């Protein structure tokens, strides 16, 4: 990363990843509003630097677990937006054949072990993946993405203690947007914070500015390397802001408008755009990236909207091998 050309390429990659995540979610929001996407939809607009900055440091055989707000994590880990969008639409060509929807996107082929509808649900799974990888003498690692709301659930304590105890190759990422559903995180969280909690459980931890993708990338690159070297679990506390509401239908009207406006000035995509411009990337270049992302997602939308529904019998598949109930119509 010392070569400036390399560095610029990396920054451009990060920019493109963030742009693609943003475009995916704005497209999905519109499609949800248009009634094309059913069910609850949680988008991470404003938080893209976290997914992008972490996952750029991962190999395809590294595994991640995610939470209910996981589109960005999946895209950054290498999942195909086309198949993700089809999944949001409940179509047969979606990652889960239409069985999962937004909250359960997984792509095992790129090491994305699944979003999760249960807050903190991914924590023990990531720890277990890390333990499995260690048993296999692999040097792949597991990364566990969760929100600030998850640190008040028991699995946080259990999982971190466990990972530290067995010195497992797992990186915990607390994506702290300051809010859990409709409640400010600090109004339900006691004590000095997540890094202190982690340290008290034997897990090395630092805080990083999650609206600065370069900072996230830098911290992640060090943490991932340490974890991969076998130095045991690490935690990154990444502070960011969720511009949109809890779900696609939540206006989050309880937040002062100024707060959201202020946050917009720290938009991670704009911020990196400014850095790139400073380093001589032409505005047109950046626009091209944005436009490409939008076009990609628009096409994903069109395709998803036109895609076939799963055949009824598909509902009866993937249950269990033995003792599954057969489909009959």
């Amino acid at each position: 990363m010392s070569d400036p050309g390399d560095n610029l390429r990396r920054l451009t990659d990060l920019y493109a990843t963030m742009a693609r995540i943003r475009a995916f979610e704005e497209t999905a929001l519109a499609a949800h509003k248009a009634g094309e996407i059913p069910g609850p939809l949680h988008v991470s607009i404003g938080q893209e630097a976290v997914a992008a900055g972490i996952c750029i440091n991962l190999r395809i055989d590294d595994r991640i677990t995610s939470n209910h707000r996981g589109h960005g994590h999946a895209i950054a880990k290498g999942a195909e937006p086309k198949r993700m969008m089809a999944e949001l639409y409940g179509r047969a060509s979606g990652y889960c054949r239409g069985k999962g929807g937004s909250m359960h996107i997984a792509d095992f082929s790129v090491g994305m072990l699944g979003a999760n509808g249960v807050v903190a649900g991914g924590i023990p799974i990531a720890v277990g993946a890390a333990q499995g990888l260690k048993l296999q003498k692999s040097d792949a690692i597991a990364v566990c993405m969760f929100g600030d709301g998850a640190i008040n659930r028991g699995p946080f304590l259990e999982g971190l203690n466990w990972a530290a105890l067995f010195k497992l190759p797992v990186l915990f990422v607390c994506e702290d947007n300051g809010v859990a559903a409709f409640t400010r995180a600090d109004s339900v969280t006691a004590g000095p914070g997540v890094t202190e909690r982690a340290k008290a459980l034997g897990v090395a931890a630092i805080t990083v500015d999650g609206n600065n993708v370069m900072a996230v990338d830098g911290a992640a690159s060090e943490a991932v390397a340490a974890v991969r070297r076998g130095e045991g679990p690490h935690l990154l506390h990444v502070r960011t802001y969720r511009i949109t509401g809890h779900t696609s239908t939540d206006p989050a009207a309880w937040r002062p408008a100024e707060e959201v406006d202020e946050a917009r000035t720290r938009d991670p995509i704009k911020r990196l755009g400014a850095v790139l411009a400073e380093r001589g990337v032409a505005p047109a270049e950046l626009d091209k990236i944005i436009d490409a992302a939008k076009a990609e997602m628009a096409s994903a939308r069109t395709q998803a909207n036109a895609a076939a529904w799963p055949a009824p019998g598909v509902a009866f598949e993937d249950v269990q091998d033995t003792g599954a109930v057969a489909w009959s119509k």
Partner: protein
Amino acid sequence: MVEVTLIEAARRAALQEMRRDPRVWVLGEDVARGGLWGQYKDFLGEFGAERVVSTPISESTIMGVGLGSALVGMRPIIEMRIFDFVMCAMDELVNQIAKIRYMFGGQAKPAVVVRMPHGMWRNSAAQHSQMLEAWFAHLPGVIVVTPATAEDTAGLLVQAIRSDDPVLFFDPKDLFGVPGNISDPIEPIPFGVARRVAEGDAATVVTWSAAVPVVAKGVEMLAADGIKVDLLDLRTIWPWDQDAVIASVKKTGRLLVVHEAVEVAGFGAEVVARVVDVAGPGALKAAKRLGAPRIPIPFSPALEAEVRVTPEKVVKAVKALIA
């Protein structure tokens, strides 16, 4: 009488009881903001932050704290937001709340109400759609309430809050917007009394919770075909109104139990087995169940439709039953 939605009826019932009894308090995620469904709207202003407590995402502790407060004489409404999350609090519910009165030889009656909005709703997929009410009928020490209308939700919630037994209250998510007429004040409805929704001789149809309006629709369609059945809404599955069901079966000789939950080992099995036990197989010409197949709830509307009970499926099942 005033017409309100089911969820508003539930709100008014809790409101009335919190006004009546200062021992009642409510705890759960976002409840101070009115709750995920508006079922505690304006409670914070009236009762203050000590009695309307928005909590961390700590389901075990939401459940356990409710219990602990009951052991010193409070009467908590423990809000679980969505049923599936109670899986994070099962030790507190199953090993503690359901057992404490018994284990301690009657020294305490934990008067808790656990509210668990359940069922399929808006394509929420496998982790937000479960219906496992049958589990709790099998669990000694608890009452299991499964209302389907605004009236019943209101009256049963009042009864639940006044009950000294732990009550598991399954709010029917999918019916929150359905209107009904409630009285003021809301009178308690006793547990274990079924509601007759329709009357007829051709068969006995038993159901509860979100399946009720679906089955009622099917029963109307059957009536249009000249087939009249007894339709009973159990309203609570423990205790359940065995007498009403058996009396009806003795009249009709045919039993169909319908529920949204998985058919295999669902509470419908208990209804059938109990009727066969008490009335004898000779009292029956046929007894069937209609429930979900034994598969998780899929997300896609195209697939969810396969799992759902529909009026058409009810019609088909009744016709097969009486064939």
